């Protein structure tokens, strides 16, 4: 998706889709609910592999770092090789994890520490969508 298409009239009629990758079932369900309350659609995945296999990157990505198998930083390092990487926000419980600088290096637009305020998350997603 190009930067223009996100703002085009055709995409305004269909709510943007936010992809969520988090291995915690409860966090995924809660993020789906919160994104629904923001008026957007969401698709969530329990692992980086599931996300890649689905082949639907979404208009932006909310990504956990600490996951079994491929972790969040590795997923971003993989995605950055693609022509138009999806704008990504890291959602993590730990500021001190070495995965965080790695993820930012690999192109994440920023991070939010869990638990977060809904308004902050909404604003950050809006910023990502504007970039998409």
């Amino acid at each position: 998706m190009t930067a223009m298409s996100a703002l085009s009239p055709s995409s305004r009629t269909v709510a943007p889709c936010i992809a969520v990758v988090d291995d915690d079932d409860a966090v995924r369900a809660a993020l789906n609910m919160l994104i629904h309350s923001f008026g957007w659609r969401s698709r969530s995945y329990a692992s980086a592999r599931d996300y890649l296999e689905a082949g639907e990157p979404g208009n932006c990505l909310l990504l956990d770092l600490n996951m079994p198998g491929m972790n969040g930083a590795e997923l971003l390092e993989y995605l950055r090789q693609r022509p138009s990487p999806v704008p990504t926000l890291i959602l993590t419980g730990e500021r001190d994890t070495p995965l965080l600088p790695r993820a930012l290096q690999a192109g994440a637009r920023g991070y939010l520490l869990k638990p977060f305020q809904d308004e902050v998350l909404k604003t950050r997603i809006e910023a990502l969508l504007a970039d998409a």
Partner: protein
Amino acid sequence: MTQGSAIKLQALLDTAVDGIITIDEAGLIQSFNKAAERIFGYRADEVIGRNVNLLMPQPYQRDHDAYIANYLHSGQKKIIGIGREVQGLRKDGRIFPLDLAVGEARIGEQRLFTGIVRDISDRKRLEQEAHRRLQELAHVSRLNTASGLAAGLAHEVNQPLTAIISHAQACLRLLQRGELDPELFSESLQQIARQGERASGVIRRLRDFVKKGESQLAPDFLNATVRDVVWLMAHELKGHGVTLELALQDDLPRVMVDRIQIEQVLFNLIRNAMDAVAEVGAERKRIVIATRHDAATHTVNLDVRDYGPGIAEAALPRLFEPFFSTKREGLGQGLSICRTIVQAHRGELSADNAAPGARFTVTLPAPPA
């Protein structure tokens, strides 16, 4: 015995390192060598002819005459022929630990009892000191572990909190817009309750873990300790992309352990295994913990096996030496502490290569069934 041979005998006894005291059937002291004088602080002439119970604290002092009478009457030996650790009473009133061996001799009609005593105050002090040091080491090591675990536990609480807060905020937002579907609302409330339980479960487990602060030997099921430690380290393992498999034998006999110290050994061994697999490919980032009972040797064995590069042959014999490390930033304390702890449990800690990887085995004595 002639007077000359009695003098010779006394001279011989006086060269002995251990205290040698003989008493008659009435418990009256017949001889008291130089070492006994040093140990108890009495001169021989102060005690000869007096009841030996003056060298004992209560209740032994009170009961000793009855012991002798009982033995003379029933022939039942309680201490004769066997060594035992008892308490002695010095002239200055100090009570001290001593090893006592008692033998019996008949000279003509007379029956004599010989007590050989050794003051073990120093040995006891050393033992206590060694125990105290071990406690300190385990404590320092535990503090280290605790700081590493804090991040993992914060994460364990953070996840359910994130879910709870997000559900609540989403419901409020939808409610304010008049768009809250009752079914979604009910689902969110259920999730909130469930995640609240989850967070309180983490705190309950953490509290149990900290409560065991008092260090003591108690019968313990090793498998439960393994599961607790693995639970505490789950987040750290996940963060390093390491899978940990358990192969625990059911119905293991209990072992007498200081659970806190054994947890420390497990933490260290699992951390080492994580370090060992840090540089290998994802398919070999694997740790297997196995327990089994060996009925033949009356032991419970625990293996921590990794699938890393293994231990260099040259390093194997030195692995448990203090300050020996194969890691760039290793202090060389972990395995040395582990072995000290395991040996204090009358067990053994060994290492070998399992090709691929290394295996550390903790062997603990199991009480006979």
